[in-house]
């Protein structure tokens, strides 16, 4: 039998969480009114059907974070996170983008430590939301990479895929909780996965979303499209799209002090905010909302593909779901495509 897989019964999984909670700050998605919010274990737990409201970015670079004391030394003794129930749209392109930003070139030590010490126990989506469109970006609704362990719910218990040496270690340290997997279980897992893919594909078929390969070019040809202004007129600059996005990474450094000394801090920032590009004296490259809206799409569908051949979008739909102005990424791309062809 393939040794990449093991099986665990539901009660044993809870025991595993108890065991992990000794070394990790275990966080998991808890259902509230058809949505999932991240909470700390121990708490009532079931695997989520689809992604949580917020991405897992907060467990890689906290919203507000000390980057350490300067002119001094500082030690850190917080527990790493164990993220249970992360979905494919939290991993895939999202982690690759974050890794590129924080680990390429100058290494961000805080992020590096989080990535090295965090444990990711992801899980398959068994359903999806109206805003989900991962398939359109070529991402399956089940994790295929970048997890330590992945959980697929079966009729009874869970199929566990081991995705890293860290995951391997967890399994061997908790040997008694796991069982050998049977091929029937893996067929059951594959069938469930295919069913979810089919249903999601049907939902997407009604969208007329452009081919993934054309998004980059639609940005290039769509700079002057009137839609940027029309859509941005409704933007209230709440920043929900940037704060919930798993690939957004922008931040602002700030300085502060207490009786012990000086600290450099980091706080999430976003290009949809009015003063994001403001310089002393008042000039601002992104001074209009339409510039800012377009800028966000340029970053995700042009800048990152140019740099690392990757769209900075996982189709999680959080920017759509959270937008009070109903600015819809899917509609932006379908409009860019249709208005472009009507011009020709």
């Amino acid at each position: 039998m393939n040794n990449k897989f093991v099986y665990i019964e539901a009660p044993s999984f809870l025991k595993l969480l108890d065991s992990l909670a000794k070394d990790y700050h275990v966080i998991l998605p808890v259902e509230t009114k058809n949505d999932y919010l991240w909470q700390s274990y121990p708490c009532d737990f079931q695997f989520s059907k689809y992604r949580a409201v917020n991405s897992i970015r907060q467990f890689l670079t906290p919203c507000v974070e000390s980057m350490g004391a300067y002119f001094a030394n500082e030690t850190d003794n917080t527990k790493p996170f164990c993220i249970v129930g992360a979905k494919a749209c939290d991993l895939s392109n999202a982690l690759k983008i974050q890794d590129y930003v924080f680990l390429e070139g100058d290494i961000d030590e805080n992020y590096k430590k989080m990535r090295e010490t965090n444990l990711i126990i992801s899980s398959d989506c068994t359903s999806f939301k109206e805003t989900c469109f991962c398939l359109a970006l070529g991402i399956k609704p089940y994790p295929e990479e970048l997890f330590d362990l992945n959980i697929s719910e079966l009729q009874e218990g869970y199929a566990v895929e081991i995705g890293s040496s860290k995951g391997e270690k967890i399994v061997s340290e908790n040997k008694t909780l796991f069982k050998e997997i049977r091929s029937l279980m893996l067929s059951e897992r594959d069938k469930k996965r295919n069913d979810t893919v089919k249903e999601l594909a049907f939902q997407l078929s009604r969208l007329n979303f452009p081919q993934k390969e054309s998004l980059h070019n639609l940005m290039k040809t769509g700079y002057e499209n009137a839609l940027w202004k029309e859509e941005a007129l409704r933007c209230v600059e709440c920043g929900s799209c940037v704060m919930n996005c798993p690939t957004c990474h922008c931040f602002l450094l700030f300085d502060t002090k207490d009786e012990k000394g000086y600290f450099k801090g980091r706080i999430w920032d976003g290009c949809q905010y009015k003063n994001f590009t403001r310089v002393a004296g008042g000039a601002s490259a992104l001074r209009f909302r339409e510039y800012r809206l377009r800028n966000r799409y340029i970053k995700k569908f042009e800048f990152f593909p140019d740099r690392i051949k990757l769209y900075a979008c996982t189709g999680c739909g959080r920017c759509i779901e959270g937008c009070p102005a109903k600015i819809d990424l899917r509609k932006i791309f379908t409009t860019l495509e249709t208005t472009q062809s009507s011009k020709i």
Partner: protein
Amino acid sequence: MNIYSPNKVTLTKIIDETSAIKTFVFRPHAPFSFQTGQFVELTYPGIGEAPFTPSSNPNKKDEFEVTIMRVGKITELFHNAKVGEILGMRGPYGNGYPLDDFKDKELLVVGGGVGIAPLRSLIYALYGRIDDFKKIVICYGARSPQDIVYKYQLDEFKKQRNVEFRMTVDRADNTWKGNVGIVTTLLDKLPLDIKSAIGIVCGPPIMMKFVSLKLLELGFAPNNVYLSMEKNMSCGLGKCGHCRLGKYYICKDGPVFKFQDIKDMWDIWD
């Protein structure tokens, strides 16, 4: 050591340039060197930081200078700082001017307002290897005679052989005997072989825009015009996102850009 942590620098001297501009001399506690055109983040400890391009000779290793105009919260704090204070600095960041590419060329250096600060560093660097260049024309425009920085040095800069130094002010007073008009008025009748000459421009965005357009009109190749594009860099390392425009991080891919590479970008001048 965290990549965002500043190192200590001691403020050793303050030179009053104009009513709104001062030059600060810093002694870094850890070894520090920079290439002309690169920038640093200066930290007012516990309060905040901002990006500046050193205005001193890059070949000087024990100290560096930054010329700062008072325009906001951080610059105000620096203006109120006292000699002997310990402040923070991290960097240098960015690409700097590709001096080797200027070898055997004729150069035109155009500075507007406090934009002459990074260019003073360049001038020092160019003067340090003056035989590498065929000819240098420096054009400096200030708003008024009172707004001219480095007054105490300009005569020395003008004396350099192989260099023609031109100056103008937007508005003259009765002490002023030189040119009057914006800096583009200095660009007529340049004693340069325009087709192969290098143009280097630094100043407020609107000045850089019009100088660039003027240089192209005169026949400079878009590939030979270099601009220093300062934006609101926060991290300086291509991570925080603030200074990205289109496909470039100004902090990492710049701040020095060829006109050719940025001409198609909307809002680059803002």
